[in-house]
C-alpha cells in the first residue's frame, strides 16, 4: 500500500501513522500531510490506486473496470448519476463487448488475472482490491463529488465560454460550491494539487522511457498502436458519454492536462482518467497487433514499470525533527573534530616519539634493507591515488631514505594515472631523483596484466625476429627486490598473487596505506611478502627506530586526537543505543 516512507529508516508506514512503526521517528507534520489535504476523500482505496502505475497491465485492467463503472462517465444528473449501493456495474456483463476490440494477449492477461492470484503481480491484485473498495465504500461520496465537479464545469462552460482558464477555474469552484458546500474545499485542493503536479513533471513525462512504454501500452489498449494516441485523448473521448466542454475550450485543456497527469502516479488522477479516456469507438481501431506476451515477459514488464514508477513516485516530503537533530549532531562532530585537529596542529608542540619495539614485519623489512648490496637493482611500483599521497609520503619516506643510496639503480613503474607525478614528487622529496639512476618504465594501467608481464620476463628460450616490439623496455628478472607502494588491498593482492606464482624468489616488500594493511597481513604471515609497513601508526615506529621524521611528529598529536575522538564516539554510540533499547523496552536481535 502507498504509505509514508520513514525519513530515518526507510520503512513503509500507514498513511495515518504519525510515528514510524519501525524506529519511532516522527513521520510527518500535520500541516504537510497530503492525505489531510484531501479532506472528504476516503484514504484507503486511493492508497491502493496510487500504486496503479506500479503495475501497468494492472492499471489498464483497472481502467477497463473503471470504464465500466457507468456513473463516472455518465452525464451528471445529481443523485441520479450516482448508482445506488449494491447496484454496481458488473464487469462480466460488459466485458465481452469491450474485449471484442482488444488484442488477444490482453484478453488472456485479464482472464489469467481473474483466474490466478499472482498472474499480474501483487500491485494489480491490490488494485483490484481497491476497485472493490471503491465500489462498496466510496462510490456514493466519490461519485457525488465528481458529478458535482463536472456539473460545475458544464455550468461554467455554458455561462462563459470565452473566459480565460483561471477565471474558468474560479467559476467552476463557484459552481461546485452551489452544488455542495462540502465540494468547495475538496475541489480547491484537488485543483491545487493538479496544477502543481502538472507543472512539475510535465516535461519529464515526455522524456522518460517508462511513460513511452505506458503510452504504447495504452495505445495498444485502444487499438491505435500509436504512442501519440494519448495526446489525442480529447478526440477519442466520447462526448456523449462524458459530456465534456467543446474542443478548444480552456476547460477542455484542463481535461487534457488531467489525462496527462494520470501518468504521473498520483492517486486521484487514476480515477480521473476514467472520465477522460472513455471507451474508444470500435470504428477507429485498426487491426489489433499480434503480440504474444509470455508470463515471464509480463512479469518483466511489471517489474520494469514498477521500478520506473517507484523512482518517480511522489513521496511524502516531511521535515523531521529528527533530521534536524541529526544534522545538528553531525555539525557538532564536524566542528569538534576539525577544531581539535587545528588546535593540535597549530597550538601544540610536535610530539616526541619514544623508540618502541617493532612488530616482526617491520624488523624483516629493516633486515632486508640492511642486506641489500650497494649496487642493488630495485623495482619500485607506485600503485596509489592522489588522495593517499600525503599518507603514502609519510609512510614511504623513512623506508625509501634507507633504501635509496647512490650506486643503486631504481626502475619505477606506476599503475595509477597520477603515478608518474606522485612518484616524481615523492622521489624528489628524498633526493632520489638526483642521487640514484632511475629508469622510468611508464604507466601500466592494468595491474594484473603488468604483474603477470613482470613475472614472465625471463629470457625467452626462442624468439621470433619478425614480431613487433612495443615502445616499452619492460622488466628484467634480475631485481634484488621489489617495493610496492599501494593504497588498496586489491591492487597489492594482484601483485602478490602474480609474483608469488612467477617470481617466488624475488623479495617483495610492501609500503601501504593503513586501510590496505589488515587484509594483506596473511601474505606476510605465509611468507609471500618479505616485509611490510602500513599506515602512519606503524610508520611512527619505523620512523622512531630510524631516527624520526619531522613530518610524522608534526601530525602525530592531531592523529592521536582524532583517534581518541573516534574511540569516544564509538563508546558513546554503544551506550546511547543501549539506553535507547532500555527506554523502548525492545531488544535488538
Amino acid at each position, binding site marked *: 500500500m502507498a504509505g509514508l516512507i520513514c525519513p530515518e529508516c526507510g520503512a513503509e508506514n500507514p498513511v495515518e501513522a504519525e510515528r514510524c512503526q519501525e524506529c519511532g521517528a516522527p513521520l510527518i507534520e500535520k500541516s504537510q500531510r497530503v492525505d489531510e489535504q484531501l479532506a472528504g476523500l476516503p484514504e484507503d482505496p486511493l492508497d491502493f490506486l496510487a500504486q496503479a502505475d506500479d503495475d501497468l497491465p494492472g492499471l489498464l485492467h483497472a481502467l477497463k473496470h473503471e470504464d465500466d463503472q457507468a456513473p463516472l462517465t455518465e452525464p451528471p444528473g445529481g443523485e441520479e448519476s450516482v448508482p445506488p449501493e449494491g447496484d454496481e456495474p458488473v464487469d462480466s456483463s460488459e466485458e465481452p463487448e469491450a474485449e471484442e476490440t482488444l488484442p488477444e494477449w490482453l484478453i488472456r492477461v485479464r482472464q489469467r488475472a481473474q483466474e490466478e492470484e499472482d498472474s499480474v503481480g501483487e500491485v494489480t491484485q491490490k488494485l483490484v482490491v481497491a476497485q472493490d473498495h471503491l465500489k462498496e465504500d466510496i462510490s456514493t461520496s466519490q461519485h457525488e463529488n465528481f458529478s458535482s465537479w463536472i456539473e460545475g464545469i458544464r455550468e461554467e462552460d455554458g455561462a462563459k465560454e470565452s473566459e480565460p482558464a483561471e477565471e474558468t477555474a474560479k467559476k467552476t469552484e463557484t459552481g461546485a460550491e452551489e452544488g455542495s458546500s462540502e465540494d468547495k474545499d475538496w475541489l480547491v485542493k484537488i485543483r491545487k494539487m493538479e496544477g502543481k503536479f502538472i507543472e512539475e513533471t510535465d516535461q519529464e513525462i515526455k522524456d522518460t522511457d517508462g511513460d513511452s512504454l505506458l503510452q504504447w501500452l495504452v495505445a495498444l489498449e485502444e487499438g491505435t498502436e500509436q504512442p501519440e494516441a494519448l495526446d489525442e485523448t480529447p478526440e477519442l473521448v466520447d462526448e456523449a458519454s462524458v459530456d465534456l466542454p467543446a474542443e478548444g475550450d480552456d476547460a477542455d485543456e484542463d481535461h487534457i492536462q488531467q489525462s496527462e497527469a494520470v501518468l504521473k502516479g498520483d492517486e486521484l488522477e487514476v480515477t480521473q482518467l476514467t472520465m477522460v479516456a472513455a471507451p474508444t469507438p470500435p470504428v477507429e481501431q485498426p487491426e489489433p497487433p499480434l503480440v504474444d506476451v509470455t508470463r515471464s515477459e509480463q512479469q518483466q514488464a511489471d517489474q520494469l514499470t514498477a521500478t520506473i514508477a517507484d523512482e518517480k513516485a511522489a513521496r511524502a516530503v516531511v521535515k523531521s525533527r529528527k533530521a534536524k537533530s541529526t544534522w545538528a549532531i553531525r555539525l557538532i562532530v564536524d566542528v569538534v573534530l576539525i577544531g581539535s585537529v587545528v588546535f593540535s596542529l597549530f597550538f601544540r608542540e610536535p610530539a616526541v616519539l619514544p623508540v618502541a*619495539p617493532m612488530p616482526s614485519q617491520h624488523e624483516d623489512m629493516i633486515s632486508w634493507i640492511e642486506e641489500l648490496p650497494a649496487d642493488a637493482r630495485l623495482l619500485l611500483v607506485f600503485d596509489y591515488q592522489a588522495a593517499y599521497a600525503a599518507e603514502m609520503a609519510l609512510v614511504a619516506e623513512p623506508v625509501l631514505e634507507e633504501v635509496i643510496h647512490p650506486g643503486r639503480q631504481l626502475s619505477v613503474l606506476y599503475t595509477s594515472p*597520477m603515478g608518474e*607525478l606522485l612518484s616524481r614528487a615523492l622521489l624528489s622529496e628524498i633526493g632520489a631523483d638526483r642521487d640514484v639512476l632511475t629508469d622510468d618504465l611508464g604507466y601500466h594501467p*592494468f595491474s594484473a596484466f603488468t604483474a*603477470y608481464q613482470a*613475472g614472465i620476463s625471463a629470457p625467452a628460450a626462442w624468439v621470433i625476429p619478425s614480431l613487433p616490439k612495443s615502445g616499452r623496455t619492460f622488466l628484467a628478472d634480475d631485481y634484488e627486490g621489489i617495493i610496492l607502494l599501494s593504497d588498496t588491498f586489491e591492487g597489492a593482492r594482484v601483485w602478490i598473487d602474480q609474483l608469488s606464482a612467477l617470481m617466488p624468489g624475488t623479495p617483495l616488500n610492501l609500503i601501504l596505506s593503513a586501510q590496505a594493511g589488515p587484509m594483506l597481513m596473511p601474505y606476510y604471515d605465509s611468507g609471500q611478502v618479505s616485509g611490510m609497513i602500513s599506515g602512519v601508526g606503524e610508520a611512527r615506529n619505523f620512523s622512531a627506530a630510524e631516527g624520526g621524521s619531522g613530518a610524522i611528529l608534526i601530525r602525530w598529536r592531531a592523529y592521536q586526537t582524532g583517534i581518541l575522538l573516534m574511540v569516544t564516539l564509538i563508546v558513546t554510540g554503544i551506550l546511547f543505543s543501549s539506553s535507547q533499547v532500555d527506554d523502548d523496552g525492545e531488544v535488538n536481535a
Partner: protein
Amino acid sequence: MKKLPAIIVSVAIGLTVLAGYFFQAELSTVLSLIVDWGILLAGVAGLIGLGYLAQYHLTRLMKREKGAFFSLITLLVFLFTLVAGLTLTTQNPFYRNLILNVQVSVEASLLAVLAVTLMFASLKLIRTRGWTPMSVGFLISALISLVLNLGVGMTESGTVLGELVAFWRRLPIVGARGILLGMAIGGLIVGLRILLGMHRPYGEE
C-alpha cells in the same frame, strides 16, 4: 555458430596465458605479445569509456537539462586538459602543477569528508546493525585496533602483555585469510568457467 569465433579466441588466449605459469621461458615471446595487445585493447576500451562520458555531458548540455551548466564546466575542463596534455606534454611544469594541485586537493578533501562521515556513522553502529556475533566482534576489534594504532601496548614480545598484544594482532589475520581464500575460490570458479567457454561475459549467454 555466431559465438564460436569469440569462444575460440577466449579459450585459446586463456589457455596460452595459463600455460605461461608452467612454461615461462618457452612461451615468454608469445605471452609478451598477447599481454601487450591486451593492454592496448584495454586502453582503447578506456578511451571509448571516456568518449561515452563526454557524450553524456554533451547530451545534457544540448538538451539543456538540469545541471547542464556543470556539464559545460566538465566538458571545458576535459577538453582543456586533453589538449594541453597532448600539446604541452605531462613534463610541462604548468601542466604538472595543474594536475597535482587539483587532483591532490580534491581527492584528499573527499577522503577527509569520509573521515568525518565515518566518525558520525560510528555513533550509529549498534543502532543500525544490532547486537550480533559479527557486530560485537567488529566493535571490539575496531576499538582495540584504534587504540593499538596510537602505539599503546608496544611492549617487548617476552612479556605477557606483549604476547597478548601479538596474539590480538594476529586475530584479524584469521578472518582475512578466510576471506582471501573465499575470494580465490570464487575467482577460480568464474575464471575456469570462462576458460571452458561455459560463461561468456563478452556476448550473449
